[in-house]
């Protein structure tokens, strides 16, 4: 049937992978025991691919807040804030986010994906230009399409190319929204934010930073890369998610500009969707407080990230970026990455398998996301398992030898 013709190439690619006897498409965590442990294929497994950077999904205070909200406010809001009204807890969470960032205008969205969709599509419309990093997350690309602005991209993390593209825009640079990410989710590298802010200011453009993977991870107070790079004053909008360091689901946008409040009336992903449910709002608010009051969690995360990074580097893995909570081992071929991912799983280690076309530069990656909740023993087991799959494949593939 012609309608389904477009799925043929996907079907072929999927079958090609399944022929290897490995099925990475329908991985199920049968039981989740803690922030770092679950059961997969009936086997106790250490989870190193969850983005649960601070391990807050099982924090007793977050669970208690969610349970209380569930009992007091019910299971869901059953409608959008525009049509059906906000719960006071939505506004409370927005005030808590404003307080956390020291910025005056926060808006909560139902998912992180929708936060990017909602903020970008509302801010940049016909006649405006969006200038995005080439390695941006899909939610950024989709947000750009939704708004109807002209979309240009610059080479990943290349400030010279960004400068060139702003120069070519001439006067239109003043109606340009630059979009970058704090930490890029695939390789774990960071935007050169100080330089980007300088170029943005030179051309009178506006800047959004997506701190999805850097909130709770970077900066003295865990605000993200803008805080770490000491350029918060030069950032116009921050977008973030609740589904990583904050351990729930949802997203937000925040800004220094009072006009940001008007996107509540124009942002379709904000208006035409059910608002976040009370238990999620409650646990997120507590998680935000924990991030603020417990810098030790961030210190532990970095200690763990350093340990895993050093361990993998010593074995001989080629790692995608400098040390951070996202550690991506670059594997020469897709087939090797598949076999190693399966090998790790059979040893009770779950990491993310990332293969083209979803990866930058067509890389095949075994992507780890480190958690503050990983114990030294777990990290040791992870490193040992990576060493085992490395040596077993090295015997068959000379290109892996270092």
């Amino acid at each position, binding site marked *: 049937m012609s309608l389904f013709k477009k799925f043929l190439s996907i079907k072929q690619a999927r079958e090609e992978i399944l022929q290897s006897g490995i099925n990475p498409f329908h991985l199920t965590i049968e039981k989740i025991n803690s922030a770092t442990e679950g059961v997969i294929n009936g086997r106790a497994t250490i989870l190193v691919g969850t983005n649960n950077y601070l391990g807050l999904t099982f924090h007793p205070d977050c669970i208690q807040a969610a349970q209380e909200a569930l009992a007091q406010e019910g299971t869901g809001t059953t409608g959008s804030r525009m049509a059906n009204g906000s719960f006071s807890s939505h506004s409370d969470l927005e005030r808590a986010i404003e307080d956390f960032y020291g910025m005056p205008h926060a808006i909560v969205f139902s998912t992180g994906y929708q936060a990017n969709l909602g903020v970008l599509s509302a801010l940049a419309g016909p006649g405006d230009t969006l200038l995005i990093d080439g390695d941006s997350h899909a939610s950024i690309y989709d947000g750009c399409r939704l708004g109807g602005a002209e*979309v*240009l991209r610059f080479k990943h993390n290349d400030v010279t*190319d960004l400068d060139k593209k702003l120069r070519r825009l001439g006067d239109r640079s003043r109606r340009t929204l630059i979009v970058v990410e704090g930490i890029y989710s695939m390789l774990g590298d960071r935007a050169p934010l100080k330089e980007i802010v300088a170029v943005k200011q030179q051309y009178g453009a506006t800047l959004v930073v997506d701190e999805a993977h850097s909130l709770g991870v970077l900066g003295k107070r865990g605000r993200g890369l803008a805080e770490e790079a000491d350029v918060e004053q030069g950032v116009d909008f921050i977008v973030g998610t609740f589904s990583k360091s904050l351990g729930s689901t949802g997203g937000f946008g925040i800004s220094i500009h009072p006009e940001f409040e008007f996107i509540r009336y124009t942002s379709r992903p904000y208006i035409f969707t059910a608002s976040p449910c009370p238990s999620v709002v409650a646990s997120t608010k507590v998680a935000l407080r924990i991030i603020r009051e417990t810098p030790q969690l961030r210190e532990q995360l970095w200690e763990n990230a350093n340990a895993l990074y050093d361990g993998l580097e010593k074995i001989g893995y080629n790692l995608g970026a400098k040390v951070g909570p996202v550690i991506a081992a670059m594997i020469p071929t897709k087939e090797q990455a598949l076999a190693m991912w399966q090998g790790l799983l059979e040893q009770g280690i779950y990491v993310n398998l990332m293969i083209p*076309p979803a990866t930058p530069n067509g890389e095949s990656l075994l992507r780890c996301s480190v958690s503050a909740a990983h114990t030294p023993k777990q990290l040791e087991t992870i490193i040992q398992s990576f060493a085992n799959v490395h040596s077993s494949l090295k015997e068959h593939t000379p290109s892996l030898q270092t």
Partner: protein
Amino acid sequence: MITYAEILPQLVETLKPYAKKVGHPKETTDLVSELGLDSLQVMQVLLKIEDQFDISIPLNNLPNIRTVKDLGQEIEQLLKA
């Protein structure tokens, strides 16, 4: 102002290294199905062309660019703007 007729030979030269399948790209050559470029190569080619002609090609226009001729005309339009 540089015209399409002047752009075309320059564009063909730039595309040649990517045209192993067809040898010499023609006006009618399809960039994806005939040159066999994957999404990564498309990105690389476009960045090269942007620098070559000092233009920025909007992503919004890419769905309309299928052939070498389409790309040449797009470059001409952007240079005029």
